């Protein structure tokens, strides 16, 4: 795809947009349609698009699998830890109300969902990129 200028230029324009849209979906999860799952996939899509369009020996996606794996694991860990955090404050698992700094249940829930969604987003995008890289690698 080296000489396909149209695709390259459009992609250069699109990738930042996709990234921003992904982040928008990510951070609006707690009060409108959106959330970690969708955002993760959208973010991953931008990375994959980048790799599809611009890949050659020098520029192929620099993130190596080990680091992606760490991201995935960190995402899961974040999710579980937030859940367990509720336990420490006497609530049930995933009881976000206790996360609030003030004693306001709804703000606590906001923080809780926010953190959990970040965890989910990290894991999902990581897994998506990893799946792509795995298949891409085995083709070569």
């Amino acid at each position: 795809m080296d000489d396909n200028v149209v695709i390259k230029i459009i992609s250069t324009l699109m990738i930042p947009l996709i990234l921003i849209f992904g982040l928008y979906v990510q951070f609006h999860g707690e009060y409108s349609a959106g959330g970690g799952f969708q955002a993760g996939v959208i973010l991953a899509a931008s990375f994959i698009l980048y790799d599809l369009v611009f890949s050659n020996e020098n520029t192929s996606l620099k993130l190596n699998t080990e680091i992606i794996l760490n991201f995935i694991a960190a995402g899961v860990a974040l999710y579980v830890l937030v859940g367990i955090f509720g336990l420490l404050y006497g609530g049930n698992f995933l009881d976000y109300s206790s996360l609030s700094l003030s004693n306001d249940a709804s703000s606590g829930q906001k923080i809780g969902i926010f953190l959990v969604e970040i965890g989910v987003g990290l894991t999902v995008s990581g897994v998506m990129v990893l799946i792509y890289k795995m298949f891409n690698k085995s083709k070569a």
Partner: protein
Amino acid sequence: MIYALNMILFTLGLVIMIRESNLVKKVIGLNIFQSSIFIFFILLSKLNDSLPPILEDYSYDYSNPLPHVLILTAIVVSISTTSLALALILKIKKQFNTIDEDEISKDDQ
């Protein structure tokens, strides 16, 4: 009516999975099969003339959000299954140099 179409999709996927000997085509069949169930769930939540379930100041008929959430999870499962299946097929391709089920089974004897 639309349920009937859905059932056709369901059967179609199942038939592809059983009939095809090409493993990749089987995976495609599996995906069709799974999608039919996803559509079935979405159909369950549909009300006539309903809007998406987003909190607004006024009240209105909204479709049931729960099946959507469920299907989101199911889709994730389906993606994992597909990718795992494809990964396994790649490995099989390396080992047997074919992705045709009949030929692999022949290799057994």
